């Protein structure tokens, strides 16, 4: 079971955000179409739908590739991912001229530490578990 290690790392990495996207999409669509919030969420939904899961997979591949040299714990490795994702998300907001950008900038000092903690815990427990299931932990 030591073949296609990076493919298995990618697959283990995309599981959590792919499943979680169902929750995100449900919440956003209810927010938009049930409560009629006048924010065009569908314009930026491509980010959690496509960018985030793929980056998780690539980030897990990077973890497997670099762990023998860096010895960085998987939780800390995962906590670094928002530092890549957040600027990309904000950039997409700017490119698509998303109207809620000032609000996001306002709450960033609170959201950033919570995001780091969430990523640390999810990577430490869920992604680590999935890596172990696929025999790459």
């Amino acid at each position, binding site marked *: 079971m030591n073949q296609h290690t990076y493919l298995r790392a990618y697959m283990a990495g995309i599981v959590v*955000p792919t499943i*979680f996207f169902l*929750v*995100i999409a449900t*919440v*956003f669509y209810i*927010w938009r179409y049930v409560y009629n919030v006048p924010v065009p969420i569908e314009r*930026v939904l491509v*980010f*959690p739908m496509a960018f*985030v899961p793929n980056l998780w997979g690539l980030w897990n591949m990077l973890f497997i590739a670099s762990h023998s040299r860096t010895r960085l714990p998987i939780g800390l490795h995962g906590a670094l991912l*928002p530092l890549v*994702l*957040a600027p990309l*998300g904000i950039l997409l907001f700017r490119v698509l001229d998303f109207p*809620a950008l000032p*609000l*996001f900038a306002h*709450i*960033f000092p*609170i*959201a950033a*530490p*919570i*995001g780091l*903690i*969430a990523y*640390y*815990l999810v990577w*430490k*427990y869920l992604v680590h*578990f999935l890596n172990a299931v696929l025999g790459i932990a």
Partner: protein
Amino acid sequence: MNAHDNNELRELLTRSIAPMNDTELRRDLWPQMLQRLEQQHSIRVPWFDWTLAAIAAAAVILFPEVIPALLYHL
């Protein structure tokens, strides 16, 4: 292969393979096996991680406006 060959082969095998006298286990291995199985299935969460989770949960409750931003990036 006749009877003589069979006897010769039996003698050769008897000589080359040492008889096993002590076939009993010196100790019971099952408790160790159970302990290993339990270690594999139980996830120990240190107090530090519980504290972090509590801080994050409290922050989300206190500042619910961060939820869309978090969902967007998770």
